[in-house]
C-alpha cells in the first residue's frame, strides 16, 4: 500500500502522465487534419485506451491519463506535499488544477450539447444533438406526435458488424430489433452497380459512405425489424435523413418509428424575432451577427439579444450565437440563426479555477523570483566587498 502511495505521489508518475498527455495532444492534433475533430476526440481524448486497427490497446487514452493525473495531483500535490507557508502557492495551483479537471469530468459525464436552428418568426422548446442519435416510437393515432418510447444513442451506435439488439416495452405490442448501424450512409434504390450494406428491403439498400471529417455531416442508418406477438416480421431501413418516419401496423394499431438526432427539451421556448449580420464596411467579412430572441416561459415573454461572446445563460442552459445562413454573398434574407446550446453543470467552474491557479502561480513564482533577486544582490555585494 505504501508503495502504491509512493508511486501515486511521485514526480516520476507526474512526468510520465504529463508526457502521455503531451503525446496524446500532439498526435490528437495531427490526427484532425485527415480525420476531423470529432474522430480525434473520440480516439485520443474521450477514450480509456488507444487501440490498433485489430482492436488491441497500445497507449493510454485521455480519460485514463487525466484520471491518473488527478489522483497523482491529489496524492502527490496535496497529501504528500508539506503544508507549509512556502508551499502555499504550489498547493493552491494543484487545488485549482484538480478543480479544473473535475469540472472537465462533470462536463464529460453530465452535459448535453446541440443546436437550435430557427428562421425569423420560428420558435422551439428543444435543441438537437450534433452527434447523438435516437430511435423514437409513437402511436400514430395519438393526438400528439410526441415520441412515447425512445431508444438512446448508446444502445444504437455499437450495433455494427452484424450485432443486433431487441427492444420491448410493456405497452408496446411488438419487439423492435435493430442492427447494422452505419455512421454515414445513403438510402438508395438498389441498382446493379453498387453493393448494399446489409439486407435490401423493398428494393432499397444502404450505400455505406466513408465518415466525413465534420461528424455533423454524417447521416446514420439502421436496419429495423418489428416482430409482433405472432412472430410476424416487418422490416425497414431507418435513415436519419428520411422525409417521414416508418409507419408500421401491429394488432390494428399504427406506429411511427424514426431515427433522428437526439432532441433535448428546454425549460422554455425560444423565438427568433430578428437576425442581423453587420459586415465591416465595404467588405463581406462579418463584423457582428446577433439574434434578437424572445424567451417564452408560460405567459412570461422576455426579449433577449444573443450575439458573439454574449450568450444567454438561463435555466441551466447556455445559448450561444454559433452561425447563420444562408451565407451566400449578397443574400439579404430571410436568414436562419444557429445557436449552440449546452447544458453543463460545470459551466463556470473553469473560470473559477483559473483565478485560483493564477493566484497560486503568482504566489509560488513571485516568491521564487524575489528570492532569486535577493540572492543575486547578496552575491554582487559579496563580490564588491571582496574586490574592495
Amino acid at each position, binding site marked *: 500500500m505504501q508503495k502504491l502511495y509512493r508511486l501515486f505521489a511521485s514526480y516520476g508518475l507526474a512526468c510520465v502522465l504529463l508526457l502521455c498527455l503531451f503525446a496524446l495532444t500532439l498526435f*490528437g492534433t495531427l490526427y484532425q487534419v485527415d480525420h476531423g475533430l470529432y474522430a480525434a476526440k473520440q480516439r485520443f481524448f474521450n477514450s480509456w485506451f488507444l487501440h490498433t486497427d485489430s482492436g488491441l490497446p497500445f497507449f493510454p487514452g485521455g480519460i485514463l491519463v487525466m484520471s491518473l493525473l488527478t489522483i497523482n495531483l491529489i496524492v502527490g500535490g496535496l497529501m504528500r506535499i508539506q503544508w507549509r507557508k512556502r508551499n502555499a502557492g504550489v498547493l493552491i495551483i494543484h487545488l485549482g488544477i484538480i478543480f479544473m479537471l473535475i469540472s472537465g469530468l462533470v462536463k464529460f459525464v453530465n452535459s448535453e450539447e446541440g443546436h437550435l436552428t430557427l428562421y425569423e418568426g420560428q420558435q422551439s422548446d428543444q435543441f438537437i444533438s450534433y452527434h447523438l442519435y435516437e430511435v423514437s416510437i409513437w402511436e400514430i393515432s395519438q393526438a400528439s406526435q410526441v415520441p412515447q418510447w425512445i431508444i438512446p444513442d448508446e444502445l444504437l451506435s455499437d450495433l455494427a458488424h452484424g450485432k443486433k439488439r431487441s427492444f420491448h416495452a410493456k405497452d408496446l405490442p411488438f419487439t423492435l430489433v435493430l442492427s447494422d448501424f452505419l455512421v454515414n450512409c445513403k438510402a438508395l434504390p438498389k441498382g446493379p452497380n453498387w453493393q448494399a450494406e446489409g439486407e435490401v428491403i423493398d428494393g432499397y439498400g444502404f450505400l455505406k459512405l466513408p465518415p466525413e471529417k465534420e461528424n455533423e455531416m454524417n447521416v446514420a442508418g439502421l436496419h429495423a425489424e418489428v416482430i409482433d406477438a405472432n412472430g410476424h416480421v416487418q422490416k425497414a431501413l431507418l435513415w436519419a435523413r428520411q422525409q417521414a418516419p416508418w409507419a408500421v401496423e401491429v394488432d390494428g394499431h399504427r406506429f411511427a418509428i424514426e431515427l433522428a438526432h437526439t432532441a433535448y427539451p428546454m425549460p422554455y421556448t425560444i423565438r427568433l424575432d430578428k437576425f442581423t449580420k453587420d459586415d465591416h464596411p465595404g467588405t463581406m467579412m462579418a463584423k457582428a451577427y446577433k439574434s434578437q430572441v424572445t424567451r417564452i416561459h408560460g405567459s412570461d415573454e422576455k426579449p433577449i439579444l444573443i450575439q458573439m461572446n454574449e450568450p444567454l445563460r438561463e435555466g441551466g442552459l447556455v445559448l450561444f450565437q454559433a452561425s447563420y445562413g444562408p451565407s451566400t454573398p449578397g443574400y439579404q434574407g430571410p436568414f436562419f440563426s444557429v445557436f449552440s446550446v449546452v447544458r453543463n453543470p460545470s459551466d463556470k467552474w473553469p*473560470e473559477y479555477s483559473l483565478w485560483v491557479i493564477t493566484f497560486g502561480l503568482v504566489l509560488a513564482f513571485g516568491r521564487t523570483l524575489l528570492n532569486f533577486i535577493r540572492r543575486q544582490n547578496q552575491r554582487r555585494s559579496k563580490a564588491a566587498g571582496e574586490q574592495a
Partner: protein
Amino acid sequence: MNFSSPLRLFAALALGMALANSSFAQQKNTHAPWSDEVVELFSTLPVQDGGRIKPMDSYAGLHLLTLNGKRTLKLDDGTKLDQNRWLLDVFFFPEIARDYPCFRVQNDGVLITMGLEAKAKRAWYSYNELIPGRDKLEEAASRAAQIEKIKRDSLDIQILKLAEDLHTFEALSSLLSLSRQDYSTDADPALVEIFGPKQAGLAWMLPKQAALQELARTNTDADSATYKAVRNLFSELDNALTTGFRAVALFPPADNADGQRDDTWWRPYDVLVQAFTTDRDMSTQIELLATLEKLDQQKNQPDAFLATLRDFHNRVVGMAEARGEYGHIPLEVKLYRWNLFTNSLVFYLLAFLIATFSFLLPNKAWLRYGTAGATILALGLAATGIVLRCIIRERPPVVTLYDTILFITSVVVLAALFMEWITRQRIGLFIAAFLGAAGMFLAGKYELKEVASSGDTMASVVAVLDTNYYLAIHVTTVAMGYAGGLLASAIAHVWIFGKLFGIRKGDKAFYKGISRMVYGTVCFSLLFALFGTIMGGVWANDSWGRFWGWDPKENGALLICLWMLIILHARLGGYIRERGLANLAIIGGMVVSASWWGVNLLNVGLHSYGFTSGVALTLFIMWGIEALVLALSAIDAMRNQPRPSRGANPEQSA
C-alpha cells in the same frame, strides 16, 4: 529639301513619322515630377479599404508592398519612386505606370507557364511585359485554385499571386476609368437638350440622370433615333460599370434616403450606381467626383493640379472629420514615415555587434553600456510602434500573427534586459540584442506575407475577435508565455554552446547561474501560458459554448503548458540536472514555435482567422537546427561523462 523622287518623299515621310513617334514615346513615358506638396496632400487623403479608414499613404504602401515586395519602387533607369508617387502615376498616368517593373515574380516557373522569357530566377516585371502571357496565367491560376489550399505547391501559390496582383493593378488603375470613357450624350437632339454641349468626364452628366431616365420612360418607339441613342447611352454607362468596381473608395458616402448614416465609402462606381438607383442627396459626392475628374484633366499642369488637389483634400478631410473618421489618419501616416520597426532592427543589429565586441573585450564597461543603450533604444522604437498601432486600431497590441512577432520580440527583449539587470553577466544583454534583431527581421519578412494574404497588417477582425477584453487578456498573456518559452530556449543555447566550446570551463557557478535563468524563464513562461490558455478556454466558453474543444490552436497552447510542467516536475524529481534542463528548454522552444506557427499551417479548427501558409520550410529548418543542437549536446555529454570508478556514486558524479 528636294523631294524630286517619290522614294525620297517616302523616306522623308517615314523619317517624319519616326520622329513623331519618338517624340510621342518620350511624351508617353515621362511627366513632370510630383511635387512634395502634392505628395503630402495625396498621402494624407483618407480612403476606406478592408473595412477601415486608412490614409492613402498606407493604401499605396500596402499595395506596392504586395506587388513589389517593398514600399518603394526602383525603375529600370535607377530612379526610385515612393509608394505615393507610384500610386499617383497609377491613378493619373496609368499608361506610364504599366511600364513600371512593379511585379515581383519569385518563381521563374510562373514566367515559363505564361510562355514568357524569365529575366532571372527572381526578377521584377512591368504590367506590359506580363500581359502577353495573361491568358495562360489565368488558365493556370484557375487550375491552381481548384487544388486544396494545403496541397498547393510553391508554383501554384506564385501563379495565383501573380494573377491576383495583375487584377489588383488593374483595379488600382481603374479609379478614373468610368470618367475617361466617351459617352454619346450628343447623339440625338433630345439628348443634347438634356445634357447641352458634350463635356469630358462623368460627373457633369449625373445631375441630369432623372431627365435621361424620364426620356427613356417616355420614348418607347424602338425604331426612333432617340430611342436608339438613349439605349446606346445606357449601354455605354452599363459597359462602364464593368470597370471600376474594385477601385479605391475615397468618397465619404451620402446618408440614406431616410437620413440614416451609411458606413460604406464610395468609389466613383458607387456614385454612378447610386445616382441612377437611389433618391439620396448626393450633390457633394458628385462634386467630389467632378473635382477628381478635374484633377485628371489638370495632371500636366502642376500648379492647377496642386490647387485642385488641395480643394479635394480639404473637402474629403472635412467630411471625414465630421463623421469622426479622420482622427487616426495623421498618426498612421507618421507610423509608416518614422519606419519605427526597421529602425528598431538597425539598433538591435548595432547592439548585437557591440555585444559581440563586449565579449571580446570584457573589461570595457562602455561596451556593455553601449549594448544596453542600443537595445533599449531599439526596444523603445518597437514599443512606440506597437503603441501607435494600438491607438490607430483601438485594439490591444496583439490581434494578428504579425502583431505577435512584434509583441513577443519586445517581451523577450524586456525580459532579457530584466534578467541582465538582476544577474549582470551580459548574457541577458547579448540575448536581448540577438533575439531583438532576429524578431524584427522576422517581422519584416512576415509583414510581406500578411499584407499579401489579408491586404493589411491592421486588418479588420472577424466577429468572434471583436472583444477587446479577451484580446487584451488572453492573447497577450499567451504571447507572453510564448516569449518566456523562447527566451528560456535561447538561454539554454548559451549553456549548451558554452559547454560545447569550453567557455569558462570549470566555472560551475557561471553555468549554475545560467541554469537558474533558464528555470526562472520557464516559470515565467508557465505562469503566462497557463493563465492565457485557461483564459482562452473561458473565452471559448463564452463564444463557442465549450471551455475546451481540443482544437489545434488550443492544443498548441496546452502543449506549451504541459512541456513547461514536465520540465519543472522533472527538475523537482531530480530526473534532470543542468544539461537536462537546457535540453528540455530547447525542446520547449520547439514546442512554442509549433504552437505559434505550426498549428496555423494545419488549416483545421475553429481558429481559422489565424491560419497561414508558406512558413513550413522555415519552421522545419528551425526544428532541424535545434535537433542538431540537441545532438551536439548529447555528444558533448557523452564526451565529458566521467568514467565510473569502483565505489563511486554515478548519481553524485553526473
